[in-house]
């Protein structure tokens, strides 16, 4: 598909009733928002991301998708930050709040965010009870993936095996091929409705050279990643639930909860009841919560996790270790958002590496004796 085909794609999705969303520049960052034309995408812009800093700057070339991730992933679309669940009155009958799940097509979903959506699906539907609100919102999504050609400095999807190339979980996927004056997209369909749209897009069948270029782009992107998660982190953390490093991180951690809020897989929420002044009407609301707050671990008589060290340990061990026991997969997809959007730049890959290094240090000193 030629580069201008992006507007045809947006048009085809709109005509099928989808509101099209994409990454847009907003307050000097990328937000996931409705778009009307491809011109609104941050063409030529990339994130200069590092631990605790995310800045948008001019990239080296005029690609539409050299940027990586908007601040929030798909989580907001399937698991809103706050929502009313039901209301009741003097009759004490609960009236469910209908889910306003308007069809949304997201253009430019990265492989890590697709993996995060799979993770959320496992969380909300994998057990004996499934969340019907989640399903209604999930069904309303049409996903156009983009395979990454350039990583941000905070990305580590390659070591989490979630990217930088999406194999499944999308309706359509795009590879952006930019070579001199030639600017085309390789389009792959991943579902029946994706194939319908693909059939109407402009362009011709892909040649072997383009397929190779796309694969090579993904390999180069994986090789260019500056961060990686240490191997065997699941067992590593389980062996080190007591470790001086937790207190060391706690000296730096603000327990502000930003990491959990931007994490595309953190699903924790709390229920809040609201009532009218006269007490005749009441509502139940659900809102995001985080293991970094004190109230989160409140049990009879008080909060269990008073120290920041125990909250940081909860976050990291849940993401990387206990998630496997709970959901049969990792809770981290390697998107790096928690690294970039932490106000003090705490880096989950570096903290894991520090604990791993201490084990190796122990083994070495053990070997010597």
């Amino acid at each position, binding site marked *: 598909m030629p580069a201008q085909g992006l507007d045809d794609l947006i048009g085809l999705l709109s005509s099928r009733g989808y509101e099209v969303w994409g990454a847009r520049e907003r307050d000097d960052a990328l937000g996931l928002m409705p778009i009307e034309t491809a011109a609104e995408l941050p063409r030529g812009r990339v994130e200069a991301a590092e631990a605790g800093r995310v800045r948008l700057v001019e990239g080296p070339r005029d690609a539409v998708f050299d940027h990586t991730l908007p601040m929030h992933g798909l989580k907001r679309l399937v698991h809103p930050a706050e929502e009313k669940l039901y209301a009741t009155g003097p009759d004490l009958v609960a009236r469910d709040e209908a889910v306003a799940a308007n069809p949304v097509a997201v253009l430019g979903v990265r492989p890590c965010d697709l993996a995060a959506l799979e993770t959320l699906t496992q969380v909300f539907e994998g057990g004996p009870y499934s969340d019907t609100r989640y399903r209604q919102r999930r069904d309303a999504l049409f996903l156009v993936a983009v395979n990454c050609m350039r990583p941000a400095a905070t990305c580590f999807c390659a070591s989490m095996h979630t990217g930088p190339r999406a194999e499944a979980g999308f309706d359509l996927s795009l590879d952006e091929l930019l070579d001199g004056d030639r600017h085309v997209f390789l389009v792959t369909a991943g579902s029946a409705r994706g194939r319908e749209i693909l059939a109407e897009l402009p362009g011709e069948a892909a040649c072997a050279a383009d397929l190779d270029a796309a694969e090579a782009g993904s390999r180069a992107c994986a090789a260019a990643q500056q961060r990686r998660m240490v191997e065997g982190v699941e067992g590593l953390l389980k062996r080190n639930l007591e470790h001086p490093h937790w207190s060391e991180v706690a000296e730096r951690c603000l327990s502000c909860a930003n990491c959990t809020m931007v994490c595309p897989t953190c699903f924790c929420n709390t229920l809040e009841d609201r*009532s009218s002044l006269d007490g005749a009407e009441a509502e139940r609301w659900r809102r995001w919560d985080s293991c970094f707050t004190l109230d989160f671990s409140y049990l009879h008589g008080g909060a269990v996790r008073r120290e920041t060290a125990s909250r940081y340990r909860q976050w990291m061990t849940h993401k990387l270790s206990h998630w496997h026991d709970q959901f049969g997969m990792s809770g981290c997809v390697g998107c790096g958002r928690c690294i970039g959007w932490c106000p003090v730049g705490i880096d989950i890959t570096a903290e894991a590496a520090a604990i791993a290094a201490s084990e190796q240090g122990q083994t070495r000193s053990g070997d010597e004796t």
Partner: protein
Amino acid sequence: MKPTLAVWKFSSCDGCQLTLLDCEDELLELAETVTIAHFLEATRSRQPGPYDISLVEGSVTTAGEVERIRQIRRDSRLLVTIGACATAGGVQALRNARDHAAFKAAVYPSPQFIDALDTSTPIADHVPVDFELRGCPIDKRQLLETITALLKGRKPVLPDYSQCVECKLAGTVCVMVAHATPCMGPVTQGGCGNLCPRVGRGCYGCFGPKENANTEMLAAEFAALGADRRTIRDLFGNVTAGAPAFAAERARHDG
């Protein structure tokens, strides 16, 4: 009989009481639900105690106020302090670690007539307090939630999370991470409704320290963003400067 509500003022600017009058849509309903027994900003009629709920605005800055708050506590079933002055001493607590006599001499032509204590202290330093509403001014929704909950005998929903959580719930771009603007949000309790970061400003800390506030690390981050000692001191020196966690951090950057 309807429950009684009393509103009291100590050393303060009246802004928090005004929040109650600001509840325009709910004010009539509130007046129907409770008897407003004492609220001088709204009405001159006063009824004697006891009161079911007392809302107390302002800090304690005179010997007379020390006596008055004790009497109000005796007269009140539930005592709720409202605002940065009542919960942390307010901006007037900036004098606490300073030479009060010198301030008086510098400001007033006849300082001998000023009959004030050397410190401005929160209400909780003097009497037991049942609930605190933070903020400068307090948040209208939190005020209504508290009154509603207390009237029904349930615990008010008053989150203890950081201002950062409000940013993320609202989808606000972080001004520290994206713009390198110093922001007090990570150590400040949320509740204002994300007023400052939402318009691209750093949080001023009006709601005071969150539990477990790691002010030292945040101050180090401010320095890394290029703030000098004086700027850092002043970031911890706004309306909640008297709160222990902020006062200690301020002191570390003083002089």
